[in-house]
């Protein structure tokens, strides 16, 4: 947090914000490289896809439930045993971008505890809980 400076020099972002930004920046760069790499593996056919890309445009005009049912596509973390398929690997690489912000939030915890900023410690924990609930698959609705 930036507090009013007694020194009249140009205000700078605080260490916690800079640290958060650094993790986001580095993680995003790495994540994007892996997203592109995963996508190239998928497109090149280096790993066979679960669904042939030639068929895909004809399968996605219907809703997601129809797509999943008709094609036996795993949902959520059901993709983990199927990372040997190019499209599943590419999908998993996309989740790395989500992991970037989760990692950045975890990085705030030591700093907040050092400062004894317990209100924001609780807010950060709550946000991590929100990510966990969203990603855990317990809330997925029954569909159309």
């Amino acid at each position: 947090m930036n507090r009013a400076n007694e020194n009249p020099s140009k205000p700078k972002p605080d260490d916690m914000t800079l640290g958060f930004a650094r993790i986001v920046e580095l993680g995003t760069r790495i994540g994007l490289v892996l997203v592109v790499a995963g996508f190239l593996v998928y497109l090149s056919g280096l790993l066979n896809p679960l669904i042939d890309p030639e068929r895909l445009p004809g399968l996605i005009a219907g809703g997601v439930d129809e797509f999943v049912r008709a094609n036996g596509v795993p949902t959520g973390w059901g993709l983990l045993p199927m990372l040997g398929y190019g499209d599943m690997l590419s999908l998993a690489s996309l989740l790395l971008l989500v992991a970037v912000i989760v990692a950045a939030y975890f990085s705030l915890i030591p700093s907040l505890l050092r400062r004894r900023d317990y209100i924001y410690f609780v807010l950060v924990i709550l946000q991590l809980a929100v990510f966990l609930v969203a990603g855990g698959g317990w809330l997925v609705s029954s569909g159309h």
Partner: protein
Amino acid sequence: MVVLSLLGATFFQEMAHAAAETVPFGWPWWVMPIALFALTSVLGVVAVLAGIGGSVLFVPIVSGFAPFIHIDFVRGAGLFIAMAGALSAGPGLARQNLVNLRLAIPVSLVASIGSIVGALIGLALPVSAIQIALGAVILLMAAMMTLFHSTEQGSGPPPGKLVEALGIFETYTDRESGREETWFPRRMALGLVLFLGVGVMAGMFGLGAGWANVPVLNLVMGVPLKFAVGTSFFTLAITSPSAALIYFQRGALLPLVVVPSTLGVMLGAKGGAWLLVRANTRVIRRVVIVVLLLAGGRALLRGFGI
């Protein structure tokens, strides 16, 4: 405005129907990712010049004019586009001291919860209802871009107890006077309620919420415009993943749609940033408003089965 947008959207009906009939049966499969990349590269440029997010253009345009990609998959891609853009831009803004993390954390928490609720609602509602609601939101967005203008400095009543308890304030150097100024967010409780609603819309429609975040921060909470934009980017980076995880759990993230679209918008945004100092952004903004009117009208027509 609604009538004009509906009339304009009807001109694109034949094109969309023809596309639905020929694709995918007539075109090779790789046309879709290449077309998405090309389209989103342009959208990325335009979005920066118009001051709105790439997903705000992506979702209504692709769902309206590419009916062979169901809106479920378009919304999932839209959230990734918003998230990737925010992750790319956020750190630079933070280094320039344009992000207030203490403000971003509580508003993002509330917006994240809203976005999860919105995603669950959006994936449960009939497509026609989604299209109608999306059309209305897009038209509202066009109206907001036309009617409202952000304030550079931000203003409002004194900060309340919630702001004092959270210790949110920021010191910056005023460009004109050269003096150090301090700002506090105002109407924090109202702002949090509005962010909950913004999150619901973002999750329901797969839109980045920057178009709503900035007005709430600037016009309601009195945050100076530059800090509102910077903090909004951080909020997007936190809110979008929450809803995107719901779409992931449902199977609505397709790499063949998400990856080229995300990369296209990010590349286009770099081009847009380069053009920003050279282009007439007022003209661009007017063009975008027309595009949003057409896209919103198209969504309404589709929602009513026309």
